[in-house]
């Protein structure tokens, strides 16, 4: 049986594509580089939209990347049930593309934040959290200036009511409070999924948290989950 193929899209201005490819490889998958200007997912079993500043974040974060040629294929892949993960800028792109609810705006502090945070898993029904249970706390770094999740009152009620919240910023013991809400996100939301449960976006960077030599390893179970989802499609 072949290793699950996880495509990682490189847009002009992507920064974390190489780390994502490396992390997929370190976890036993095969990282497949994808290029924004092509319409080919190269038989990927899962797709990651990585962090960075696609198209310089001009207009709005993710607003222009969302119309890149490869996104037509990503939208089709997601529509067919394929697992799609957006990390940081990738999360912004998925929101702009309408694949995920809400939007990401400037951090409440007005400052770029770059540090390790604790996030609480809210559901196992996502491509990143299979095998985890609600309440699990993971240490993963964030690094963003525009990561404050917002949604209209109606959308936010739906996101909460339908259990679409996948991660929340929290204290090390899992308590969600304002002090640990690193960017002022609505209800401390760090990641959400779509209704079907095959598309997920998050601001923290699991691909930077797989190697114990360089920091926390909270990204390992998330990528392991993604690989298991991808494997199911091989």
């Amino acid at each position, binding site marked *: 049986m072949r290793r699950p193929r996880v495509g990682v899209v490189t847009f002009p201005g992507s920064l974390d594509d190489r780390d994502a490819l490396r992390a997929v490889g370190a976890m036993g998958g095969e990282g497949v580089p994808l290029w924004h200007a092509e319409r080919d997912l190269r038989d990927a079993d899962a797709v990651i939209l990585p962090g960075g500043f696609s198209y310089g974040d001009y*207009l*709005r974060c993710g607003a*222009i990347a969302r119309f890149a040629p490869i996104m037509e294929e990503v939208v089709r892949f997601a529509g067919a049930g394929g697992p799609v993960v957006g990390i940081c800028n990738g999360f912004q792109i998925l*929101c702009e593309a309408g694949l995920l609810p*809400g939007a990401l*705006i*400037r*951090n409440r502090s007005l400052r770029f934040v770059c540090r390790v945070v604790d996030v609480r898993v809210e559901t196992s029904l996502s491509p990143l959290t299979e095998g985890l249970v609600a309440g699990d706390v993971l240490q993963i770094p964030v690094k963003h200036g525009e990561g404050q999740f917002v949604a209209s*009152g109606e959308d936010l009620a739906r996101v909460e009511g339908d259990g679409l919240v996948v991660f929340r910023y929290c204290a090390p013991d899992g308590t969600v409070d304002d002090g640990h809400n690193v960017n*002022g996100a609505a209800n401390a939301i760090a990641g959400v999924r779509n209704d079907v449960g095959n598309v997920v976006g998050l601001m923290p960077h699991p691909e930077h948290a797989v190697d114990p030599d360089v920091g926390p390893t909270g990204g390992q179970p998330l990528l392991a989950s993604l690989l298991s989802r991808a494997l199911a499609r091989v």
Partner: protein
Amino acid sequence: MKRRFEVVVTLRPGLLDPQGKAVESALPAMGWTNVSDVRVGKHIVLTVDADSEDAAREQVEEMSRRLLSNPVIEDFRILASGELPA
């Protein structure tokens, strides 16, 4: 016929506008202490070549909805439009 349009994009009223807040907090330091409710938006100017004013405006509206603004967080207004000399 080429027509010039101006589109103004602003964060929706209920949403915190961190840029507006930053500007607002800088103004008192410069001596202006009577300023409140500062909001920062985007001003986009573009030229459209279309057969009629209506067609051009309709296109600008669609572009504003689909790319220039994000309806989840922003409103837009199409301000002036005017014909350009050929």
